[in-house]
């Protein structure tokens, strides 16, 4: 049984298709970010990611000094379905850390 897949990149979703089985970075709403291996996605940007690290960023303001304290909460999940309506952007991982 031979399966023919169109290898031409025509539209943005094709760019994401190139990242299947690769690690990606996903920016979500509510100041969340995910890094994981892309296993599947659809046109809504629903995704399944493996070996995921989630980072939640919060900013606290000190009552007296009014300084902004940026905190990040991390957790890891082995296998995760992400609903597409929360996704802002998808990219190859940005290696800043």
């Amino acid at each position, binding site marked *: 049984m031979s*399966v023919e*897949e169109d290898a031409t990149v*025509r*539209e943005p*979703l*094709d760019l994401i*298709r190139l990242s*299947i*089985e690769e690690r990606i970075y996903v920016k979500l709403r509510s100041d969340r970010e995910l890094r994981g291996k892309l*296993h*599947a*996605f*659809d*046109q809504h940007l*629903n995704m*399944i990611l*493996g070996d995921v690290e989630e980072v939640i960023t919060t900013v606290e303001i000190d009552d007296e000094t009014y300084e902004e304290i940026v905190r990040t909460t991390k957790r890891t*999940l*082995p*296998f*995760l*379905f*992400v*609903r597409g*309506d*929360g996704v802002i952007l998808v990219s190859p991982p940005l290696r800043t850390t």
Partner: protein
Amino acid sequence: MLFFSYFKDLVGQEVTVELKNDLAIRGTLHSVDQYLNIKLENTKVVDQDKYPHMLSVRNCFIRGSVVRYVQLPKDGVDVDLLHDAARREARGG
């Protein structure tokens, strides 16, 4: 259709659904529909002290649009089949 099929294959397995309001519910996947609405059985809220709302609830219907994540069993389905299906998935159009 891809994820609808995926979840249908996962019926009977234990999953944790995390909602957009931060509530997390663990339960057995009973059924799913085209909107990815989910029905869970034998449910237990993950942080019961923080969210006592559903202490006595054992089965629930979750509207697909309120889901943020579904934490899945890693060996739930064949990953290679997922990769192939995603590559074949028709473009948005």
